[in-house]
């Protein structure tokens, strides 16, 4: 008989506790984001596809066209070209393409780069309609970036 009533009261009390939890949630601010209209900042740890960094001192990229990234890439998705120019020390980058359809975000290129010219970008809306939408011209991207 005692167990009967204690079960009843502990049960009822747990129900009240539960109601209190959900009532608190009802009056707490919403935590979801209305995505296409509202966006939250991407964490700096986010590993998007690679991008050439714009050096704030020189105003351009830091690539020296050594080709280490191209050689190191396990999926062969980086292709770059450079040429010798008058009055400039070393080679000048003329083409840097990333075939994102094959990239696996391993980051070997970022780690191998001797001048830290590469980094992951925070671009996460990368949907496209055709395969060629994912062949990025990183040199053009770094020049267009403010």
């Amino acid at each position, binding site marked *: 008989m005692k167990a009967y009533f204690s079960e009843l009261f502990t049960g009822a009390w747990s129900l009240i506790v539960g*109601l209190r939890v959900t009532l608190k949630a*009802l009056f707490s601010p*919403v935590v*979801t984001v*209305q995505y296409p209209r509202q966006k939250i900042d991407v964490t700096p740890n986010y590993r998007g596809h690679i991008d050439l960094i714009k050096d704030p001192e020189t105003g351009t990229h830091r690539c020296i066209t050594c080709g280490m990234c191209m050689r190191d890439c396990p999926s062969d998705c980086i292709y770059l070209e450079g040429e010798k120019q008058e009055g400039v020390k070393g080679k000048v980058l003329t083409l840097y393409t990333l075939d994102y359809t094959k990239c696996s975000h391993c980051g070997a290129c970022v780690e191998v780069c001797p001048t830290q010219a590469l980094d992951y970008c925070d671009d996460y809306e990368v949907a496209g309609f055709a395969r060629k939408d994912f062949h990025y011209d990183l040199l053009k991207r770094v020049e267009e970036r403010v």
Partner: protein
Amino acid sequence: MQTLNSYAPEIIRIVIAVAGAAVVVFGNALIMGYMERKLAGHFQRRTGPMEVGYHGILQLIIDGIKLMSKQLVIPAKADKPLFMLAPIISFAPVFLPLLVIPFSDRIQAFDLDVGLLFVLAVASINVLAVLVGGWASNNKYSMFGAFRAVAQNVAYEIPMLISLLAIVFMTNTFSLRGIVEAQNVWFIVLQPVAFLIYLVCMVAETNRAPFDLAEAESELTAGFHTEYSGMSFSLFMMAEYTNMFIVSCIATVFFLGGTSGIPLPYFEYTGIIWFLLKVYFFMFFLVWIRWTYPRTRFDQLMNLCWKYLLPISLVNLLITVVVVKL
């Protein structure tokens, strides 16, 4: 009887009453559908529908149009006449209890002497609809849902009736208006045990979580309405929402003094504001517990009814009778 019939001939009164009941049924389904989804969102710290109209306010209209324009799929081996009949059996009787509910002193279609019995008798037709629908679908999930619904509703009708009977003994009337008028003090104060028992039974009678075993999604896909689509599905949903409204009305009439509240001008009519506020408080409570508690197991459900609610309601009835007769 101080209702509309002193002003208008009988036939007009009937037309007004039926139109009013239809407005309540459909309006309530719209409001509750929106409120349920919005509250469900906010209970989980989401926003709920946001896209159609300001804060998703037109969502239910869009959903209604979608359901109406959908094809009615009838399974090949289903019992076709019964399959089509079940949503109608479910939906048609929900208008009737609304006719005897005293929304306000002058807003009540008929004041039956046996109002309570009428409401409970008509409301329990819904079980038949669930059974017919589940049986006719010729589907194991539907059938189990229907069996569960019948067992559950038959079980919970008893403590519900007994807890309400305690109040009938106090007021000496089955008429809902008479019960409202008898409440100088709200009966929730005089009969707290009956109120709590009624509260549990009301959730079980409307087949809502945590007692939604008849449509337990995780076990039975959708229970008795697994095979229903389009308008026949929405008839079931509207019947469910209207049943929620009716049990909330009964709770308001029996325990919260019906229309009683701070007097407003033209209180014979504006009493409906207080009445609806109380009703929607109960509706809010139903949504609240739905998004708080997990579903009970079937043996737990039956234990709760037969081992707790029934004995306690009988003791409560006995004490009430003794106190009334003293």
